[in-house]
């Protein structure tokens, strides 16, 4: 297993490194004159030169890249052009919304998706199975940001149970608090979770059905174990192995969904930050945020790989 994990760690580091090169190349090298891109076509040569000096753009690309990555590894980030604040500060503030939202959405996804998938598999080809699969087919077709708008229409416009958007903050001193914060993230998390849960339920059903066909399951039933006992003791753990891999892949879609849904609910998270940065042509912020989002996806997939090695006994070293 340690060889497996070492290989995965090497892939993780390599992926992050290549991602940083690509992000830097697209945002810092390909555009040619980044200062020109930031200031626009009407900028004077003097203002372009001044911005180049301020952002260090007159240094070679390799030096700028090394400076950027070296700074990140030491916890130092560049100054945002439009906010005049280190990007780390901006990102840290916004992560206080995006991270809890992503985690809440993932929790809902796992709860709804796996339950629905197991339920459908246990009732294969019966009404329950058909109903769940029909709903999941519909769920996959629904854009998460449209579902978010429908939730706002129902709960904010029609029923007026919640606000149509915004985030009160986690601190009671700012007029928010833990409970108001969670309430503000509830509808966005559900909007994100619906599509992912639909996908996860189909994969879970498929994995459980595959495992139910195994010989050891037939043996367990022949030994007298009930269907429920077989499902919980033997089937689920083995079925979760491929499901775990899918969860890792789904996280990438969840992160990009978070970017969109934050804009629907006007949440002050990473998604809103990156779009404001694009509008302000603040490429420094865009660069750091995109790398952060890519890094989150890569880290989650690495964690999934580690959990995979823990759960799957075939990857553990055999006992002497």
């Amino acid at each position: 297993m340690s060889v497996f994990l070492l290989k995965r760690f090497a892939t993780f580091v390599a992926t992050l490194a290549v991602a940083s090169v690509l992000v830097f190349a697209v945002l810092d090298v390909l555009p040619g004159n980044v200062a020109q891109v930031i200031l626009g076509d009407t900028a004077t040569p003097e203002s372009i030169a001044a911005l180049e000096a301020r952002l260090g753009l007159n240094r070679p690309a390799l030096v700028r890249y090394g400076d950027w990555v070296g700074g990140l590894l030491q916890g130092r980030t560049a100054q945002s052009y439009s906010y005049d604040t280190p990007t780390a500060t901006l990102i840290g503030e916004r992560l206080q919304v995006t991270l809890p939202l992503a985690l809440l959405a993932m929790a809902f996804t796992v709860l709804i998706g796996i339950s629905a998938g197991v339920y459908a598999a246990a009732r294969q080809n019966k009404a329950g199975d058909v109903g769940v699969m029909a709903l999941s087919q519909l769920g996959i077709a629904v854009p998460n940001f449209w579902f978010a708008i429908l939730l706002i229409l129902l709960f904010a416009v029609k029923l007026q149970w919640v606000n149509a958007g915004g985030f009160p903050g986690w601190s009671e001193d700012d007029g928010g608090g833990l409970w108001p914060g969670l309430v503000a993230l509830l509808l966005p998390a559900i909007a994100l979770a619906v599509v992912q849960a639909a996908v996860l339920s189909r994969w879970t059903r498929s994995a459980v059905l595959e495992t139910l066909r195994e010989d050891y399951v037939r043996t367990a039933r022949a030994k007298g174990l009930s269907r429920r006992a077989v499902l919980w003791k033997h089937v689920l753990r083995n079925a979760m192995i491929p499901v775990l891999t899918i969860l890792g892949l789904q996280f990438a879609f969840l992160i990009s969904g978070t970017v969109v849904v934050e804009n629907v609910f006007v949440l002050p998270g990473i998604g809103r930050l990156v779009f404001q940065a694009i509008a302000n042509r603040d490429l420094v912020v865009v660069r750091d945020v995109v790398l952060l989002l890519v890094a989150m996806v890569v880290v989650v997939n690495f964690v999934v790989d580690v959990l995979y090695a823990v759960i799957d006994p075939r990857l553990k070293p055999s006992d002497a």
Partner: protein
Amino acid sequence: MSAVLPAPPASGGLVARALRHPSFAIGAVLTLLLVAAAVLSLAWSPYPPAEIDIPHKLQAPSAAHWFGTDSLGRDIASQLLVGARASILVGVFAVLIGFSIGAALGLLASARGGWVEEGVMRLSDFTFAFPALLSAILLGAIYGPGLVTGIVAIGVFNIPVFARVTRAAANAIWAREYVLAARTAGKNRWQITWDHVVPNVASVLIVQATNQFATAIIAEAALSYLGLGTQPPMPSWGRMLNEAQTQMFQAPMLAVYPGMAIVLAVLGLNLMGDGLRDLLDPKLARKR
């Protein structure tokens, strides 16, 4: 003496089976509606979709405006019709990019194996870390938003999807006895790829293409909603949703129509893909 397998049904049988398959039939009808709307919009729409008519803004559905009008008096039905064009354009080109490059990489990886296969798979792993939206953000920040930005961003993300699916399907073909026989007979790997692998993975790729088309429609709508996709004056379902959100209290239905259009289009393609998967599976074909 070996058993003789029944011959697979002729292509006419495939069409008849397709029309009887509920998923495929419903999916095909919905997909045809999408294509018909896009094609019809080239020649006709009830009103010019960008025509502003402020005195008739936010009107309810009527005989004159079947789905009503938006905040600028533009006809919703016309925008829905022409919006189908953006969805089809992005879907077709994004899938073409992914299919042509991805399938080629997958076939190469499978045929060569070794470090070539490892390299292609690591490249596709890496690309998965860049969902289409992030790529569109990156490209939009530099080159500006637009239809082409969206197509490239979504298309690039399709490449590893097709590469993985093609490689997995091709590896299964390479393990077959008839391929071993072809190698023994002296055929090189490219001849085997062309003569045996490509025809046998085609059905898998067709199914994947319909699924990716559906994904591309949702991705385009998301990009347009955010202002990174199709730009005015070309209508887009995603941008219609963005504009409708500002009128949620006055005209909530404005947010429903474009969303329903997206759902029906994506549902149609997904159902058609599911149906094709069943119809093109040779094991299921023999059972029938």
